[in-house]
């Protein structure tokens, strides 16, 4: 469990808090999306989960361990943080070397490294690039290498900072399926994102941050249809929720944010309307 207790934080040399009195509990195996406007403190918050940043006030516990008491390397064994820009971490000559890097840092033996590199590259469709330089890959492929590089050591909690940026629809769909697979394995998934459409399809629990404080913490259906909260976090409704909002004749939107639920909601109403007009 990741537990954030009354955390306040400010960067050295600045006079105002980036996070103010943040409280948050994330259970093992839970899927959470942290959303909010630019500068809301989302990335700062998740950097506390593996100890890259330590709270000025309050505490962060990961599986009962205070992050103040452990090094980043020790915490990272259980908390895998995937950064937004893959170019900030890729350095090796081949994808295979890139995937092995963290495994070597964590002291895995060579046999296990070889097996894990093969498994993760196959799972993420990278097997044909295994001997290529990561620098010749496309942006989306580099992003997958960065993801694979973290998943290779099999952390219990996986944090993804803006995982959908630069990904086409097919890759987003693959990522969504992969997240579902990871959740079924009992992994905790935390994503930091602005992508309301992606969140609407995944339907995680949403923690909404604005100006360094948690302003809402609820289901995706409730938050992504709450105009007041969305406005505070500079977000908009998903398109399907907006469409239903623009059709008041259908009645109040009961929290529908994805196409499949919208279809279930619309079909009986359209049939009824058809019958009423005498065409059914």
């Amino acid at each position, binding site marked *: 469990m990741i537990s954030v207790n009354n955390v306040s934080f400010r960067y*050295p*040399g600045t006079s105002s808090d980036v996070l103010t009195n943040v409280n948050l509990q994330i259970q093992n195996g839970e899927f959470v999306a942290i959303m909010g406007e630019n500068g809301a403190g989302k990335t700062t918050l998740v*950097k506390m989960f*593996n100890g*890259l940043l330590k709270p000025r006030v309050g505490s962060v516990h990961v599986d009962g361990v205070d992050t103040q008491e452990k*090094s*980043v*390397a020790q915490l*990272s*064994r259980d908390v*895998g*943080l995937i*950064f937004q*820009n893959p*170019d*900030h*971490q*890729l*350095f090796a000559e081949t994808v295979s070397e890139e995937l092995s*890097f*963290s495994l070597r*840092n*964590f002291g895995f033996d060579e046999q296990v490294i070889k097996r894990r590199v093969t498994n993760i590259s196959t799972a993420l469709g990278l097997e044909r690039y295994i001997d290529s330089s990561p*620098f010749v890959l496309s942006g989306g492929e580099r992003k997958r290498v960065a993801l694979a*590089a*973290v998943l290779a*050591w099999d952390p219990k909690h996986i944090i993804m900072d803006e995982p959908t940026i630069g990904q086409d629809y097919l890759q987003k769909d693959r990522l969504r399926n992969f997240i579902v697979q990871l959740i079924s394995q009992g992994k905790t998934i935390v994503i930091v994102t602005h992508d309301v459409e992606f969140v609407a399809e995944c339907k995680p629990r949403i923690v909404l941050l604005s100006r360094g404080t948690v302003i809402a913490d609820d289901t995706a259906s409730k938050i992504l249809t709450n105009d007041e909260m969305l406005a505070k976090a500079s977000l908009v409704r998903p398109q399907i929720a907006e469409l239903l909002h623009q059709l008041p004749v259908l009645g109040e939107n009961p929290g529908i944010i994805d196409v499949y639920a919208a279809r279930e909601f619309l079909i009986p109403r359209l049939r009824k309307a058809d019958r009423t007009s005498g065409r059914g």
Partner: protein
Amino acid sequence: MSLRFVEGFKFTKIDSPIHRMDPRAKFVLTIGLFTTALMFTNIFALITIFLFQIPLVLISKTSRRWLRSMKGGLFLGVFIFVMNSIFGTALVLSISFTLRFFAIMSAFSFFFMTTSADDLGLALDQIHVPYSISFTFTTAVRLVPTMAVDAQTVVDAQRSRGLELDKGNLVKRVRNYIPILIPLIISAIRRSVELAEALESRAFGATEHRTAIVTLKMHFADYVTIIGTILGLGLAIYVYFRVPLPTVVIPIQLPRIFG
């Protein structure tokens, strides 16, 4: 590892007599300090060059950030000392090289903290440096803080993958920086290519003869600084050739690994 020491090379607008000075005068002063530091290997001379800069830093109200840059340079300073020592340089000379590094670093930290990139660009234009060169130089100066942010992100990303920068012997510690330097260099190259394309898309270099709305004007203090620097440099050359400076003898020889 924090890269906050880069703030010691970043311009911040402050109302101080040094900030108001002409960038050309400050540049002459910096080059004067740099040249003098390169001339001497005598510890007392290098300490004098270093101490001479402290009142200037205090007048420019940048002492806190200057200290940060000195603190940030400690790793490199120790590296210079250790490398010189293990390659057989005498202990006194190793100390001198380390002091020289700090004297030069301090001079450039002082210059960049008190001179804006715009002023620097104007100064270069007014001494007829081709615009493409002055633009490249000032852009490089402007990008230093951005590069520092990038470097910190790279450090964070690699630490999150279990990299421990401060672990192991000296050789291992130096090797630990490879996963930091490569992404940093690659992203700098990518950024420069993108910047060049963006500039070309916005007709950079279309006008051969550029004009500037602001022209720099030297004042009394600037002339005093330039003349003072030239006299100081002359004095340093005189001392170097004619005045025997006191020397320090340290009767310890570190074990040679190489050399």
